[in-house]
């Protein structure tokens, strides 16, 4: 099996290398063929690995493939840890990646960076697989940084566009903040557990549970709390949790397939995956779990609210991604790791679908992204319309869709949790359902119904996108609609994850849920009696009222009544302004100070130029000793001899 795992990782890498290095030679068709082939191989083998592990009864694989470096007693290995959690992630990553690869053939046609784009997304697939398949923290960190790098490259893919450059810079810098915490967490593990290997670390964990860390004189925290919170700070950067979320909306500057693959379905969920992977640590700390839950709840509700005021179709979906990531984080905080991963999976499908469908709309609209300039598109592009509707229904959790099962499970799990902050989290995610339904269908109605507000030339060219674009939409719509119904029972209630996820009995909300679970069908029927579904219906109804029935009066009226809250939302709570003034301005001020005093005066002025000047002057002086007169030379020799003689013979 080891060879198969290697092949899964290497196939996309080889594709990326060929497309990247020989892109010019093999042309557009060559580039997309070779990368799609690479990812298809990875997908096929991932399915095989999934089958072998889940039905074939293969035990958890955990071994080093080769040792990269050894220092003292530490081994830095490249290795794989393949269990049920990993194979699920592998299938999700490779399947969405494959769809996006195919879709890109249609979306990027005619772009001068065509081969480069395919090289990047294949490289991304490789990095993401390295991340999820790692058996140690070093490799996890490598994958973590590699996906960050590719994300940076792809947000700034159109590098002549200034907003894109600023956006990729922002993503990179904000992620550094998170990575700083993550790196400290890894260092803490290395320091206390003396290993970076997952399995060894978890073995040694019970012994470390009672260790106290005094990080400030007189203030002690337990070691698991410190490690868990540091690791979670890393997850906050990658999975865009408040207050490190600011980069994700701006990342929409990148091409749409990237928004679907990296900034919705896979990379941003790496933080969720990582926390689930480290569930044994988080379980040991109620404080860390509460922290995770509260951060997630804030993200889920407040980022959703921002979606209401956006007019760019991709930004609406981006804020909904933030909000959904918040849901997953809440689930992690409630110890419902399996529910978080379940939502991660369903979200990957329906959010990739939504983004790709939005991309299809954008193609049709000739790269116009403002939903106020759309309308009535349903009759021009029926496939996009239907698949977009499926994605939207899944997003709002319409009973029967995959989103319903995963999101409802999260809300129920939070309700069952007794940790501090659980009540706040419960109300946040509950209200979030209404908000989600409202902004989703606001967008949906504005795009596909109502008056056709685009200009005449655009309207005359409106038509359905080519097959290479609609095929991935259809293929993604199927799991977006159905995957929840078929997998909720096995994933959540049949011990699918086995030992991959560890939950203490005191935290085991999923067990509570299990008592009330009587099959997916029953859950659907029961859904209609719960407030969750009705809240989402209410959201849809309000959106319909505002944008279908009275589109000319109500939105204006609401904007006037809620003028002040709207201003707050338009400014995205002022996070960007705050960062610009305090962190941006502060570091610029500090940098200028260091530059003027430290660099110009001390280093350049005194040390570099000063010593160079001194040596130059000395050289010119000493040079004069070499007079060219023989008797001077002999004199110096004799003087040297006498000096040494006096010192050695008489003075020592």
């Amino acid at each position, binding site marked *: 099996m080891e060879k198969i795992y290697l092949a899964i990782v290497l196939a996309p890498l080889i594709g990326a290398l060929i497309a990247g290095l020989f892109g010019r030679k093999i042309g557009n068709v060559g580039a997309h063929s070779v990368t799609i082939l690479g990812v298809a191989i990875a997908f096929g083998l991932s399915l095989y690995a999934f089958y072998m592990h889940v039905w074939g009864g293969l035990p958890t694989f955990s071994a080093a493939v080769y040792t990269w470096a050894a220092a003292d007693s530490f081994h830095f290995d490249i290795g794989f840890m393949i269990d049920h959690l990993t194979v699920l992630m592998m299938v999700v990553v490779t399947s969405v990646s494959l769809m996006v690869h195919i879709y890109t053939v249609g979306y990027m046609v005619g772009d001068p960076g065509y081969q480069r784009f395919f090289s990047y997304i294949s490289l991304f697939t490789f990095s993401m697989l390295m991340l999820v398949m790692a058996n140690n923290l070093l490799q996890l960190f490598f994958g973590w940084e590699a996906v960050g790098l590719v994300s940076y490259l792809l947000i700034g893919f159109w590098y002549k566009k200034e907003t894109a450059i600023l956006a990729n810079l922002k993503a990179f810098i904000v992620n550094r903040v998170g990575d700083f915490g993550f790196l400290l967490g890894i260092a803490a593990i290395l320091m206390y557990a003396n290993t970076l290997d997952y399995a060894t670390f978890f073995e040694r964990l019970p012994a470390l549970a009672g260790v106290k860390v005094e990080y400030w004189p007189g203030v002690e925290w337990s070691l698991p709390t410190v490690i868990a919170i540091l690791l979670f700070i890393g997850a906050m950067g990658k999975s865009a949790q408040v207050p490190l979320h600011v980069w994700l909306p701006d990342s929409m500057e990148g091409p749409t397939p990237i928004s679907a693959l990296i900034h919705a379905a896979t990379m941003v969920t790496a933080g969720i995956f990582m926390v689930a992977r480290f569930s044994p640590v988080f379980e040991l700390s109620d404080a860390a779990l509460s922290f995770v839950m509260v951060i997630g709840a804030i993200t889920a509700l407040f980022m959703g609210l921002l979606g209401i005021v956006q007019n760019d179709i991709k930004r609406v979906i981006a804020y909904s991604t933030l909000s959904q990531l918040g849901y997953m984080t809440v689930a992690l905080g409630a110890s419902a790791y399996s529910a978080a991963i379940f939502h991660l999976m369903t979200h990957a499908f329906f959010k990739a679908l939504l983004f790709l469908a939005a991309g299809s709309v954008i193609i049709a609209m000739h790269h116009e992204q403002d939903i106020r300039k759309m309308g009535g598109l349903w009759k021009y592009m029926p496939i996009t319309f239907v698949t977009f509707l499926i994605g939207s229904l899944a997003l709002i959790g319409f009973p029967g869709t995959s989103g319903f099962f995963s999101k409802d499970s999260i809300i129920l799990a939070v309700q069952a949790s007794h940790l501090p902050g659980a009540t706040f989290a419960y109300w946040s995610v509950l209200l979030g359902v209404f908000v989600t339904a409202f902004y989703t269908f606001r967008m949906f109605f504005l795009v596909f119904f109502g008056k056709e507000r685009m200009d005449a030339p655009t309207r005359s060219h409106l038509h359905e996108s080519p097959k290479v674009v609609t095929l991935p939409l259809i293929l993604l719509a199927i799991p977006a609609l159905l995957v929840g119904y078929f997998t909720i029972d096995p994933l959540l209630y049949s011990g699918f994850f086995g030992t991959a996820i560890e939950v203490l009995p005191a935290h085991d909300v999923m067990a509570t849920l299990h008592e009330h679970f009587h099959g997916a069908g029953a859950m659907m029927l029961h859904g209609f009696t719960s407030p969750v579904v009705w809240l989402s219906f209410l959201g849809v109804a309000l959106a319909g009222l505002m944008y279908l029935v009275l589109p000319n009066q109500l939105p204006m009226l609401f904007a006037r009544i809620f003028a002040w809250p709207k201003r707050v939302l338009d400014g995205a709570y002022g996070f960007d302004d705050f960062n610009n003034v305090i962190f941006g301005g502060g570091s610029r001020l500090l940098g200028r100070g260091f530059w003027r005093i430290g660099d110009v005066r001390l280093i350049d002025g005194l040390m570099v130029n000063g010593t160079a000047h001194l040596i130059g002057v000395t*050289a010119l002086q000493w040079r004069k000793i*070499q007079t060219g007169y*023989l008797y001077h*030379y002999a004199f110096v*020799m004799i003087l040297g001899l006498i000096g040494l003689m006096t010192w050695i*013979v008489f003075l020592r």
Partner: protein
Amino acid sequence: MPNVLPTIAALNLMPILPEMILAGMACLILLIDPFLPRHGRNVSYALTLLTLIVLFIVTLLHMSPEVRLSFGGMVVNDPMSDLMKLVSYVALAAVLVMSRGYLRDRGMDKGEYYMLALFGLLGMMILISANHLLLIYLGLELMSLAMYAMTAFKRDDGRASEAAMKYFVLGALASGILLYGMSLLYGVTGGQLMLTDIATALTHDSPSLALKAAVVLLVVGAVFKLGIAPFHMWLPDVYEGAPTAVTLYLATAPKIAALAMVIRLLVDGMGGLMSDWQPILIVTVVLSLAIGNVVAIAQTSFKRMLTYSAISHVGFIMLGILAGTQAGYSAALFYAIAYVVMSIGAFGMILLLARQGYEAENLDDLNGLNDRSPVMAFVFLLLMFSMAGIPFTLGFWAKLAVLQAVVGVGLWWLAVYAVVMAVIGAFYYLRAVKFVYFDAPTDTTPVNADWNVQGVLALSGLLVLIWGLFPSALVGLATRAFGG
């Protein structure tokens, strides 16, 4: 000692077979050269090279990890002498091959050049294998006299004659100092001349005044040929004044022989007095590193810059000796071999750029070499990087080895000082590289030097790179030379 003449068999002549071959061949060339055609000394040149090849093979075949004494113990052959001799042959061969065109262009292609080179080599070999104070003196003088004569080889050149004059007078002064030291040592040890006997005789707890004076005189006499400050004054003038082909000769193989003399005298003979000679060497090394690196910056002549760089390099070599450990000696030898390789290349660059009637000695002459010959420019870059001690070149490992040796005996401050001086030195090496790559050439004709000059230069660049990437082979040789 029994008053009976030893038989030929008891003399055990096999270990000095190379010296005998060399003496015989030198005399043979001396005899047949006058009968050869007036122009072109192809036969003498070929015979000289043949001699070196034969010597190389004979020495290689007789190599042995054991110490072999001959001539009643006066001559010693050990792994160190074998390695040093082999390096000397190769260095001399490289020098002769490179000098050929230069000598011909300047009408200096005379048979005497080859004979002097061979007699000088004989002196070096005797010095390398000497186990007796008189033999040391004999070898030193044989080598030095050949070198004086070679410096003055261009008789009608004022600069060369002046240089030879200075060299001869100061050399005589140094020989006098050395001889004075030897006679004191002879008296103090009660009439011992054999180095091994001297070592056993010097078992006093505290050395007498006379012995201390002898140590100072011997050290000064021994380091003169290396050009250690403050006994370096002759070196810039001689190297600059001598014809470049001779400078190349002076700067390479004799350094190995001089290092051998230092090791034989100080380590083999007066190892017990280390606490007395170590401080002297420390002072001279500190001075050498400062003068070599700082004054080089002020030079406008590339040739003169290289002579100051030579002063700095011998300072580094002495770092290994003053450490007084096996690791230190082998580091010094390793450095010396590396220095020979680098200076063949660096001084060879002057030969490369020189034309008939024009000596390309100034730093300006290097300008834009990259436009004229990219390959030679890259070789130049490698050589300069190596001299500056930039990883991963040969020079880096050489510096690392001597610094490790010094740190190994706890002389931290000296290692730090040496590194600071090396950083200062890096400035002028890199400045030369800058001239080659970034300045516009004053002379835009492509370089069309002999293939043998270019070939040897390329070889030295290659060695610097290959031994820089895989230093362990050379390190191993230098370590085994001291029984490690």
